[in-house]
Structures are given as structure tokens and as C-alpha cells.
């Protein structure tokens, strides 16, 4: 019956992948990719129970942290992309510029953010 669990996780990953291909904007794609990733994490856990070996379980920890990094970097990219386009709403630039204060060593990034705002 663990095969059924693995099959259901792959089904969930397929449904989320369809959403990934048909999403209207970038934020929905990132979230769909997140759900795909978590479905495969569940499939890895079910596969470990199926084969009764904890060999691949360390992958779950790595995938959790890598997926978090991907989501956060995509979110930051979305905010700064809207600043560059000059969108209809002020997307809260001063909060971000006060956050990026300590990264003064990288001159190129600091001047890029300052020029865009």
C-alpha cells in the first residue's frame, strides 16, 4: 500500500506541474514549484518506508533548505522587478533600502538598487 501513497504523491506533483505550466504570473509559478517539490519530498519519505531503508532521508533536509532559498530569492526578485518597471503602486522601497544597508561592500548591487529607486 505504500505504492499507492507514492502514486498519489506523484499525482499531486503532476497536478502542480500543470499549474506551473499554466500559471498567470511568476508568483503562482514559484508557489506551484514549491508544491511540486514538497510532493516529491513526501514521495521520498514514502519510498523510504517502502524499501525500509533510511538511506535517502537526508535528502529531505537538503531539499527543504534549498526550496526555502529559492522561494525567498524569487520573492525578493519580484519586489525589485516591480521597482524597475515603475508599477502603479509604490511597492514599499524605503523598507527594502533600510534592509540593504549593511551590504555596502558590494558596490554594484547597492548602486543598482539606488538607481532603480
Amino acid at each position, binding site marked *: *500500500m505504500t505504492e499507492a501513497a507514492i502514486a498519489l504523491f506523484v499525482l*499531486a506533483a503532476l497536478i502542480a506541474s500543470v499549474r506551473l505550466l499554466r500559471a498567470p504570473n511568476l508568483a503562482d509559478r514559484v508557489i506551484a514549484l514549491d508544491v511540486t517539490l514538497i510532493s516529491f519530498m513526501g514521495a521520498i519519505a*514514502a519510498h523510504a518506508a517502502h524499501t525500509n531503508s533510511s538511506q535517502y532521508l537526508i535528502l529531505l533536509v537538503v531539499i*527543504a533548505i534549498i526550496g526555502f532559498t529559492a522561494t525567498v530569492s524569487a520573492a525578493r526578485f519580484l519586489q525589485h522587478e516591480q521597482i524597475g518597471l515603475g508599477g502603479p503602486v509604490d511597492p514599499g522601497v524605503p523598507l527594502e533600502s533600510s534592509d540593504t544597508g549593511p551590504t555596502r561592500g558590494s558596490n554594484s548591487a547597492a548602486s543598482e538598487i539606488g538607481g532603480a529607486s
Partner: protein
Amino acid sequence: MTIVAEVIMIVGALIAVLAAVGLHKFATPYARFHAAGKASPVALLVVALGAGISLGWAGSALLIVASVAMILTLPVGVHMMFRAVHRSTPPTLDIDDLAPAERFARDRNK
């Protein structure tokens, strides 16, 4: 005992399917992010519980570490996506509780 573990794992897989279907079905981005950010970590926790029952303590240690990493990181990431969407789209909400806070932050930093 193994039948209990298998039933728990299938329940977790069904929760993951519901999370993926919710991505298609909900209308607004905030509702879709709720479907993804609440249901999918619960699916992973439930399947980790089932796999932990099946694997014993050696496997459960790694599964607990993976679950704690997931609980600590995934809500933060989904919250940052909420914030990015809220700041980068024109206001379409009827009641926007974040708008006064963002206005306050902008005025303070001017």
C-alpha cells in the same frame, strides 16, 4: 502496525493532492498561497509520521530533522511571497489591513 503507517501515509498523500488541486481552484493569489502554504507542510508532516512509524527510531531522527526544517522555513518563504505580491500588484482587496502599516513605513523612512 504497518497497516497504521500505510494508512497515515496515504492520508498525507491525499492532503498533498488537495494542495495541488487548490492551486487550480482558488480565484485570488492569496487563497492559492494559503492552499499551498498550509496544506503541503501538513502533508509532509503526516507522511513523515507514517514513515517514522514504519522505519523506527533511526529513520525517525532524520524525519524529525526534515520536519523541523520544513516547519521553520516554508511559512517564512510563503509569507515573503505574500508580501511581494501585496507590494507589486495594484490594490484589489475590499479590506486591506496591511495598507496603513506600509504607509506608515514609507512615511517614516522619507
